[in-house]
């Protein structure tokens, strides 16, 4: 390589920093995912209660009591998990440097996953129906090997996702590969 190797963080303040630093995801992201999971579980709970209370095939009283206890217990546990997930989503972040892209995640187990851009096979911006509603997007980055571990940055504002994608595509190594 003739040019000097640099790997500073892009889009910050042009200071050359060695280690990746965390940029947080879009503000509404954690709230939105939490709201989605609360809605999902609430609907499921309602369905379970409907089945339990429907008049056509009456459930015996003792069975009903046990089921209600189970449902109560389960909702407490699920509620705690959702709370945990909220903070976990809040803790996620990313960093785009000249040569690589980094994902920060985890609350108890903190993971820093770094993907060199020269090893990226292809890249996708994905948007589900809810993402489209709130103007968010996910960035999927694929490299060779272990398919189970896809590199995914969720909760990016659409413009951010697109600009990261364009930056990666503009990288000289990516253009090399065509």
């Amino acid at each position, binding site marked *: *390589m003739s040019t000097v190797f640099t790997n500073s963080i892009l889009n910050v303040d042009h200071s050359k920093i060695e280690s990746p630093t965390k940029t947080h995801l879009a503000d509404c992201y954690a709230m939105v995912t939490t709201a989605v999971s609360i809605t999902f579980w609430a609907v499921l709970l309602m369905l379970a209660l409907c089945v339990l209370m429907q008049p056509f095939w009456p459930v015996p009283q003792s069975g009903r009591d046990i089921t209600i206890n189970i449902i109560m217990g389960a909702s407490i546990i699920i509620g705690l998990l959702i709370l945990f997930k909220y903070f976990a989503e809040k803790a996620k972040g990313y960093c785009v440097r000249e040569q690589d892209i980094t994902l920060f995640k985890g609350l108890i187990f903190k993971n820093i996953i770094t993907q060199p851009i020269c*090893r990226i096979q292809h890249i996708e911006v994905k948007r589900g129906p809810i993402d489209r509603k709130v103007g968010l997007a996910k960035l999927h980055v694929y*490299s060779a*090997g272990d398919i189970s571990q896809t590199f995914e940055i969720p909760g990016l504002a659409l413009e951010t996702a697109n600009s990261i994608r364009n930056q990666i595509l503009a990288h000289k190594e990516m253009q090399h590969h065509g």
Partner: protein
Amino acid sequence: MDNSSVPQQTIDTITENNNRWHRVSPLAILYYIEKLFVILLNNIFYMLPALFVLWDKIQANPWIAASIIGVLLSIITFFSIWSFVVFRYRLSEGTVEVKSGIFSKKHVNLPFNRIQNVKIEQPFYYRIFNFSSMAFDSGGSLNQEARLIALPLSFAKTLQIEINEYKSNSTNTVSSFDVNNEYQLDSDNSTAPSDEVVENTRSIGDLILHGITSNRLYILLAALAPFVDDIFSFAGEKLEGMGIDIQAHLDNDPAWQIGVWAISLLLLVIGLMTLLSIIGAIIMFYGYTLSRTHDKYIRRSGLITKHEVSVPLSRIQIALMKQDLLDIVFGRINLRLDQLNAQISSMNAGGNDTSKLLVPSVFAYECRDIIEHVFPSHNLHNTDFMAISKRFIIRYVSFIVIPITGVLSYSSYYNEGLSPMVPIAVFFVLAVLVYGRWLRWGYQINETYLYIQKGLLGRDKYCLPITKIQKITFSQSYFMEQNKLASLKIYLASGSYHIPMIDQDHAKTIYDYVLYKVESEAKAWM
């Protein structure tokens, strides 16, 4: 299909009157039957415990069982014929196209100059008719592999030559846009006289040793352990039926005699298992040769079905020296050179060992020489590994061993049947295993290679070339952060590799160095 006339036809005539879809010989049905059988057998293995439990029911209604088997066989035959009927191939304008599949239709279109590797296989049922099947490897994902089943051998060989010639002719016209330099090297090679040299062969003695050492007896025993009671009562009933009363013997005979019986029974089982394993090793590795051209390793072996795997050196992602306990005793090593998605394909059952670049039961110096061609000046065979943190032991003892012991002690407290010695013994055994695991873990890094060692009874040593790394994860739990420790996970195209609980600063240095090396050199990983 006129099987007999095809071999006489040259490829030219075939490629001239092409643009037509061809069927293969009906012998392809045999191929599909074999494939479905292998899938079925693999699944039966998982169903064995269920079969064992249901054995009485099966015996009571043999007709139902027989008809189930009959139905299964006819389903297999039906689908095999159907698969054959929908299978079509076409050779035109320097591409091979294959249409196949019943439910999920697949249409593979593979230009000759994308073909990295042509593999000709001759399963035993084709050898009688002098047929073969061809696999074209494009170097991409597994889905892009095309396979022509049931072609006359001479036709397959002509086609192979044709493809190689096509590739070398078109090399000049291919624009630089065509990504792989490596492929161009490849086709240069195909016109040049082959510089193939035999690097390694395995004698029958080696294979017998491999059969003994790679014996998976203890895994089978562990899998059978939950059914020990059933097996004994079953065997007892059988023997009683033959006029031998085990219970009477157990009650009357002296203890030493029962002991001798038990030991000889055990030895008999071990002997049988070992024999099976040796037979398996010989079937798979008979006539093993590993040869090398300037840019490829080629492995040929097989007693019943002959396999040929050729792998360009540049496609090899890692070298792995694998030793089971018995391998360590005999001083032998199983060497594996993994390519793409090796970990995934080893999870999919069926034919996994045959498609790998594996050298069974070699000595350390042979290992060193073979790896040397792929990863020059590596030092895998005598690396001083650095130990991981002792907190590894604390972590596994407190988060896995103690909970297990806790549950066991709880149940032994409330359950008369369980002796309090059991949880204590379990605790010590597990703790010793965790300690052994810690003892084996090790890592080392130099400018070009990252070495990892792990194992428990056996020992696996990995050599990862740093420039081929795809991505890296640095992770830390709350407790690890308190103790200034971190783990690394390294991803290559062949799979992922883990270094747990090492010094945080050292982990950070490795993490930074790996990224620097990969990004600044940006060397091809394939």
